[in-house]
């Protein structure tokens, strides 16, 4: 370790959706790495300390090193020639990069989707169905006397949710921290989060919907069939007790995770939870909060929504945005509809998509932007090495509660940012597609209203 260090206060950790902004980083300016991250959790510490500049070409095509300009040109050509190109990822990218990505999708007339679709996409869909009573994390810290974690495991996925925002932290009306709160965990497994809970309810796997539905009935004073006990493995008295606690708290909050969104029922599970929380507002103040992560996936939802009207799974084939999860989402585009080119930004779908989707990636030209080698960059045709958002670049990240935080980079990277790369590709795609954009205009008037109404 060299003497040449500097300290950055109030730096931002972008590993999980907590986006904690109280990091104190010690940066070794000779070694180009962060040697200490005060206030970081275990995940944050590894996020900061493991980030080293890899020795890779700035850009490569087909495994051969090329110039930045050549890679931009090739990418623009690929995306323009394709009939059904897709852009996917965006979770570990700043809002500034996400904006450029949506512009490319618009100009190239393809699909754009974020990691939301395989994460909290079903939460977004539930929101569109029933709405949501929610809050910023500070209000949880200040007021929540009943905190429920449902199908999520913050101890291992969002460690500082406990210490900084929701459990042990003290707030305006919660002067004694955890002593003033009741913490409930709903999870079939005794996870690392279990010790923090006053009450641990362990339903049978994939029976969340049934359990929430019964709770809704109990909250409303309706009869619940005794079969609920057999179905969920949770005694009726336990459910009754929880229903009463929820109605009688001063400010209740439910955090939930993949246990609901990925399970059988998907957006119906999350929709049921949202509805339950809405019901509870007849009795007291109650809110619900998806425990979102990776990085800036929340920002991707925001940017896509303000630019297109829809949070993820957006398609521009006809010259304007359309939304349909299950049709315009990345897994479906690849595995079923045979997307013919793909650009993956700051994500690694080759390592977490279903096999059939990965098979399709291997058949088509793939462009990858990532700070480090990944399964996806290994199979990509055009590979850009990027600097790391937050660590090397300015920008904005949205916390899981939709609060935007400005990043404070620690040291410089020799690689360009994804904003620079995407902006260059955008400008070229814009030029290449001007004709397509005017042809589409006339085509639309021929197709007429039926398409507009029926197809989206």
């Amino acid at each position, binding site marked *: 370790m060299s003497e040449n260090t500097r300290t950055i206060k*109030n730096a*931002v950790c972008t590993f999980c959706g907590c986006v904690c*902004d109280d990091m104190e980083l010690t940066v070794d300016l000779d070694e180009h790495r962060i040697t200490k991250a005060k206030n970081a959790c275990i995940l944050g510490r590894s996020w900061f300390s493991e980030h080293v500049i890899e020795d890779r070409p700035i850009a490569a095509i087909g495994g051969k090193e090329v110039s930045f300009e050549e890679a931009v040109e090739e990418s623009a050509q690929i995306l323009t020639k394709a009939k059904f190109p897709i852009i996917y990822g965006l979770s570990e990218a700043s809002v500034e990069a996400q*904006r450029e990505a949506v512009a490319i999708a*618009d100009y190239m007339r393809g699909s754009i989707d974020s990691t939301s679709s395989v994460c909290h996409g079903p939460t977004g869909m539930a*929101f*569109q*169905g*029933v*709405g*949501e*009573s*929610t*809050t*910023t*994390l*500070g*209000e949880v*810290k*200040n*007021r929540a006397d009943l905190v429920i974690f449902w199908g999520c495991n913050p101890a291992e996925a969002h460690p500082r949710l406990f210490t*900084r*925002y929701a459990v042990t932290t003290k*707030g*305006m009306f919660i002067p004694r921290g955890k002593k003033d709160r009741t913490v409930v965990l709903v999870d079939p497994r005794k996870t690392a989060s279990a010790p923090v809970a006053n009450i641990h309810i362990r339903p049978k796997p994939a029976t969340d919907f049934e359990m929430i539905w019964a709770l809704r009935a109990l909250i409303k004073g309706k009869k619940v069939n005794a079969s609920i006990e057999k179905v969920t493995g949770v005694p009726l008295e336990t459910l009754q007790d929880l229903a009463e606690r929820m109605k009688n708290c*001063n*400010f209740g909050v439910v955090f939930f995770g993949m246990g609901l969104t990925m399970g059988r029922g998907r957006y119906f599970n999350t929709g049921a939870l949202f509805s339950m929380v*809405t019901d509870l*507002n007849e*009795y*007291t*103040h109650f*809110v619900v909060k998806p425990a979102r992560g990776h990085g800036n996936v929340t920002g991707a939802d*925001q940017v896509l*929504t*303000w*630019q*297109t*009207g829809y*949070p993820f799974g957006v398609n521009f084939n*006809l*010259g*304007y*945005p*359309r*939304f349909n999860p299950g049709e315009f989402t990345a897994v479906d585009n690849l595995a079923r509809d045979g997307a013919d080119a793909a650009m993956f930004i700051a994500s690694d779908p080759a390592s977490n998509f279903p096999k059939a989707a990965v098979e399709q990636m291997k058949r088509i030209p793939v462009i990858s932007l990532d700070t480090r080698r990944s399964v996806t960059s290994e199979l990509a045709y055009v590979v850009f090495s990027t600097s790391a958002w937050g660590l090397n670049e*300015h920008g904005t990240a*949205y916390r899981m509660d*939709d*609060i*935007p*935080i*400005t990043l404070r980079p620690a040291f410089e990277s020799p690689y360009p940012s994804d904003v620079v790369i995407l902006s260059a590709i955008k400008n070229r795609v814009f030029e290449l597609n001007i004709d397509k*954009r*005017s042809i*589409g*205009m006339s085509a*639309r008037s021929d197709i007429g209203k039926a398409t*507009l109404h029926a197809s*989206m």
Partner: protein
Amino acid sequence: MVSATRIVNGKVYDPINNIDGVIRDICIEDGRIVESVPDSATRIEAQGMVIMPGGVDIHCHIAGPKVNAGRKLMPEDHRKDPYPGTAVTRSGSGGIVPSTFTTGYRYATMGYTTAMEAAVPPLSARHTLEELHDTPVIDKGFYVLLANNIFLQNLIKEGRQEEFQQAVAWWMNATRAYTPKLVNPGGDEPWKGKRNTNVHDIDEKVDGISPRQIIEAFVIAADKMNLPHPAHIHCNNLGHSGNYRTTLETMRTAGDKRLHIAHIQFNCYGGEVGKQPASKAAEIIEYINQHPNITCDVGQVMFGNALSMTADAPLAYMLRGINKNKWVNADTECESGCGIVPFTYQGHVYTHTLQWAIGLELFLLTENPWQVILSTDHPNGGSFMNYPKLIRLLMDRGFRRQEIARVNQKAIAKTMISDLDREYSLYEIAIITRAGPARALGLKNKGHLGPGADADITIHDEMEDKEMMFNAPRYVLKSGVHIIADHEFREDHTGRLLHITPEYDQKIEEVIQPFFESYYSVQFENYPIDKSYMHDNEVISTGST
């Protein structure tokens, strides 16, 4: 970019310069209106056309967290109204809450070139700036929600008015906002902290503070700081029968100091709480007629789809109780509440018709149109896309009668609307959509066509049907750029952020910071917005008005 333009032979309406339908040339250079331009300037032939300054929307909801939540909430609405891109413009979605691009372009296609987002929690100001940056063509700014800010309330409770004013100034700078916004002052604490209740009277104290104390503190601070636009208030009891008394008391609280009442139509109701409302438009407008220190925007209700989105969370919850539709509640720590509910105004419903008629009464009863500004509180009373129709309702008595005949007659009978024969002139329309809002906002370069003004100009074919006429200006120039010509987009444009930077004593940060460290979830140092979010912007001076 065209550097110089001369518009010839058009009929000019420019109330700030007392020009009422006079044919004269308008010259433009470097984005501003000038006395003359060289002969080589581009000419726009405007014979048979009406020239006005670009429209100024003083109160709408077009960007920020609640707007984006409303957008996300309504895919079924966007689907029916796609907005294709062109060779120069981005694509988007329409509907009651259009995407940012569509919002900017649609304002432009109606001849509006400035719009103010009316309610932003400080913690989300950064988000709002990002959205406004993606809202093309128009110049824009936003009002920042401060009335339910717990820190500021504590200062008021302790009688620390001087520090309060410093803190307000600090917040304006930290968020890059245009003016303080007060929504249901004092109503957040009972909502969040006392099981979803509300404050019901301007003098009711909750935790030691009443709405009136809050309003007073802001009125005084805004006056002392000489803000270009005063405190902008959404009154208590909005939407409830009998609330006109609260509105009168709110206006009285200001004394002879300036105050802007937002979407005042929603605060003109007689009757008993929980029962059918009646119109008290005449009482309210009489007060305004006698008090030139008050301005208001109407918040006209238009039949059809709306989306109620407000920092007044208890109000949204009340509306949700009516239709059991999807509902969003969103708390912002220490600062604000928020509620969102889809809503449809229907002509056959008594209350909806009454609201519609009250708005029209306000317009038609005012003695001074400079004080009564056109708005629909977009999208709360209906989309801003209704402005042309609203203009026709004001300008065309025959059309108004037709519309009156189609709606709930019981409600109509409870108002004066059938007896009001007034028809607005083009000059008056130019006041309530251009000159009036620009003056109320303290925007000296907007709302008129005199030399030095921003070259934000709309040129309409003069038509009998005023809805048609205002729906489709033939030309729209923004900062001198020919955005629309012959009804088609010719160029894209980013627009500027309008904000204020009142001076403050830096010592106030030492007072704010400890509170922040205890009760906020973000670091104090990360809260103020840095320059990287500013892009094109213009500071409006807080000097003498």
